[in-house]
């Protein structure tokens, strides 16, 4: 039971990092990244590539965490300034292209069969590392969100032309947010690889992106507490699928698919009735009368 708790906390921490990364991109800046699984996969595959080619684990982590932001900048490059609708499709496509490449080019990291990587022998250590990564991303995101930078990112979210006429370069800010949040997601991917000890393309489908989006939208994309709450809810339902299947006697495939269906329903209901999510953005008050 304790083992299960430790494992659950580790997994929730990893997905929380992905959620905070999406909070920065979408919740603050308004970037609709439907390929959030991509930087996560790049991190994991950096690790897998190193393992498959006899490189040390730190080199794999380095590759993943460096490659992800570069890839991010490449992906958003064609999204010309002030044309945003593009993002969703481009990022979605990029994520799939990466997965299909990993699937069909086995020399990188084993193709369909995947690759075994070093697995943390000590579950407590894995948990501590995951929580540390979460803490670092959380502090970073909080500092950014509460700063003048966070304020300008919110302006971008509302109206890029406004930001531009106020003398800001929207595309520069978007690049910065992309690079920073893709580094986070890649770090989560590295950790994930070492927690599971095995990496294959099937772990990085669009479904993963869908699960992250469900958590973020449900909890409230514009607040850190919101995305964390959403992640906890979604991941708890996910890890408990197994128990639900046992308890109900239904086949576990069916239960897993029902879960995804339920996520879809949750997304629709939230969009309709509570677009700001469970925890909405708090109003920042200033004293205007002080002299």
């Amino acid at each position, binding site marked *: 039971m304790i083992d299960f708790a430790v494992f659950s906390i580790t997994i929730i921490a990893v997905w929380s990092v992905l959620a905070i990364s999406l909070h920065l991109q979408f919740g603050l800046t308004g970037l609709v990244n439907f390929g959030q699984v991509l930087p996560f996969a790049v991190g994991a595959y950096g690790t897998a590539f190193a393992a498959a080619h006899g490189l040390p684990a730190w080199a794999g982590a380095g590759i993943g965490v460096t490659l992800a932001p570069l890839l991010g900048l490449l992906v958003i490059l064609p999204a010309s300034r002030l044309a945003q609708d593009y993002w969703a499709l481009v990022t979605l496509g990029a994520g799939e292209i990466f997965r299909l490449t990993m699937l069909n080019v086995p020399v990188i990291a084993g193709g369909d069969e995947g690759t075994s990587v070093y697995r943390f022998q000590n579950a407590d250590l894995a948990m501590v590392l995951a929580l540390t990564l979460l803490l670092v991303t959380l502090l970073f995101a909080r*500092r*950014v969100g509460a*700063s*003048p*930078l966070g*304020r*300008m990112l*919110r*302006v971008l979210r*509302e*109206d890029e*032309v*406004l930001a*531009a*006429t*106020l*003398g*800001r*370069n*929207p595309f520069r*800010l978007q690049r*910065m947010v992309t690079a*920073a949040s893709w580094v986070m997601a890649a770090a989560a991917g590295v950790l994930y690889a070492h927690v599971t000890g095995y990496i294959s393309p099937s772990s990085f489908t669009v479904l993963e992106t869908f699960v992250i989006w469900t958590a973020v939208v449900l909890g409230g994309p514009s607040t850190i507490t919101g995305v964390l709450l959403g992640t906890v809810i979604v991941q708890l339902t996910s890890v408990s699928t197994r128990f639900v299947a046992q308890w109900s006697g239904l086949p576990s495939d069916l239960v897993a698919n029902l879960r995804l269906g339920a996520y879809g329903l949750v997304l629709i209901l939230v969009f309709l009735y509570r677009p700001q999510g469970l925890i909405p*953005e708090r*109003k*920042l*008050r*200033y004293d*205007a*009368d*002080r*002299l």
Partner: protein
Amino acid sequence: MLTVCDLSVSYGRFQALRSVSLQAAPGSILGLIGPNGSGKSTFLNVIAGVQAVASGEVRLDGTLVPLGLPERVAAHGIGRSFQTPRLAHRLTVFQNIMIGARPQAGERLRSLFLQPATVRRREADIQDEARSVLRRLDLSHKANDYAGMLSGGQQKLLSLGMLLMGHPRVLLLDEPAAGVNPVLIERQINLLKELRAEGRIILLVEHNMEMVCGVCDRVVVLDSGAVIAEGDPDAIRRDERVMRSYLGEPA
């Protein structure tokens, strides 16, 4: 001195501006009038860099202002308000005022993490200035309301305040009085006169002739993208051709 030379803009085959030229001196208000669709907003958009241009140039005190690059134009001290105010609706009035300030150390990652003291000091200064701008606009009581909740007239005042935070030498104002109640129009007129006295260049696109005649030093009339008349407000009012184009009949 703001000098605009031979600006032309086409949307496909449609010519929205035909070789428009004009000049505006510091400490003056230049009115820009004309019927709907005559190209007034397009003209302001070109100067603000929001609209790409076919040909022509804009100079401020002899320096060429880059066209089509809004973020660079702002750095030249040119600010634009929009016919339909552009605001961050889910930020408060106070925050909307603050984002007008430029540059902000706290918007750079490096300063944010390595020079927190600098960031804090700059932020405190911006807050002080925001307070005084709000007082000037008489909007202090709305400071903590969401910008999206303001009335149309208050939104126009707010976008003017946002502009002022950037200390613009040139203000491009697109129909600030449209849909605004008389009390707020009066407040705007006083504000414009103050800004003129401070030596700024103001281009005022406006249909409200009372406002135009009340504050403008000179008026340029556009029709179908071309300048058809230019002069002091009274002369323009008496110009039969202008009134015909404007109202569709002799005044």
